[in-house]
């Protein structure tokens, strides 16, 4: 997969659903007959992938929320992996 640009708009892929599960105290990603329990950072990234925000928006939002900087590469790597796993798809 080629390098993602800052302007792509990732969204939860069709047939998948992200939700917070109190019983597991975690975000989970639900898909046909399967589930992935997400750790805190994966949940924080995926819950911002709404097909409206760009990759740059998501990074900026996370850096604001966690009062830090330099997250761009980690977020890009995670989004790339999530696209390969078909958890995410890109909206133009």
């Amino acid at each position, binding site marked *: 997969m080629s390098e993602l640009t800052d302007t792509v708009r990732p969204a939860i892929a069709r047939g998948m659903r992200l939700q917070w599960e109190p019983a597991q105290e975690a975000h989970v990603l*639900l898909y046909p007959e399967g589930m992935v329990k*997400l750790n805190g950072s994966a949940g924080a990234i995926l819950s911002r992938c709404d097909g409206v925000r760009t990759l740059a928006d998501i990074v900026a939002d996370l850096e604001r929320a966690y009062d830090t900087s330099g997250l761009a590469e980690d977020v890009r790597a995670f989004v790339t992996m999530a696209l390969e796993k078909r958890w995410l798809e890109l909206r133009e």
Partner: protein
Amino acid sequence: MSGTPAEKAGGAGPQTRTSPGVGPTPHGVGPPLWLLLELTYRCPLHCVFCYNPTEFARTGPELPTADWIRVLREARALGAVQLGLSGGEPLEREDLETIVAEAHGLGYYINLITSGVGLTAARIGALKTAGLDHIQLSFQDSTRELNDFLSSTRTFELKAKVAALIRAHDYPMVLNVVLHRLNIDHVGEILDMAERLGAQYVELANTQYYGWAWLNRQQLLPSRAQLERAEAVTQRFRERVAGKITVYFVVPDYFERRPKACMGGLGSVFLGVAPDGTAMPCHAARMLPGLELPNVLATDIRAIWYDSEAFNRFRGEAWMKEPCRSCPERVKDFGGCRCQAYLLTGDATNTDPVCDLSPHHRLVTDAVARAERADAVAAPSEHVLVFRDHRTSIAVVPGEPARVGGQREDP
């Protein structure tokens, strides 16, 4: 049987953690993440490989809508989140849309497991509106329909119609085909058909030998040569459609040397409820002798999951015998399948004889060897296939599974 969510979520990468890694409850047991409601044993089909209990016609009446809804609420409160609706054929239930709507409102991810028979445009529209998330369409390729199926005539037309409806309603196209010795040589045609239907996921699931499939094991078990040919064909197909279609090939465990981690361990993540309200730690558990399965009409889901003897019996390791008890792999496969241990050896606490460390392993290798001989002579077996139907279900003698269709041998 399909994998539990926990099995299928494996390999999710460093950023994630898969179930069952759920934090311990006061009971030290995680929630029943995967709830399967077998809404009815009624089915328009008569598949020879059905895992439903052979005595289904003698079980109690189906639960009414209100009880299914109560089960949904109680299980969701415990943390159940993946919901399977199956049967029998779940479309036989006229209240399916009501059940789906309730489940959607509660936050379940809802999987309908269906043959597609009865899935009209009106019903799929209503199910979509009610919040159904996913449809798994199975091929009912029983031998009665084998020719029809392979010649792509009536069955294909039905499937094509249903597949078009599924696509039109923006569902991912997930096809499930049960393989056995009578159709496994046609896996190439089956995959081509799946491609023409627009499938995105194809699950080629070799028959597992429970229920009706156990009765017909001698006729359904493929030879190793058949299996290897089918895997090679599947691999070529995968390479051709890479990126478009994902194909799972579930090897029959009789050909393995280690058992499957059945249900991720009984009482770990899976809770099944039969049409009459019987709660089960696996789809086939009602065959296990001495296991008094609770019923949702008498006991609430919390007490069933955490407190009942049936759901606690095979938790942990205390029940295990050698060679499992001292085996380092017991934490990985939990001793394999309890139902298979019972069917083949007569004792549900034995090591699953699929494991080559089991003193009963030859029960599996002998069955495979018989399949090899049958393959060599290329003649139909002298045994007659038993179709899943109501009349036969009444006639089958329950409680003696190891003598029906199998060759149980005393150790």
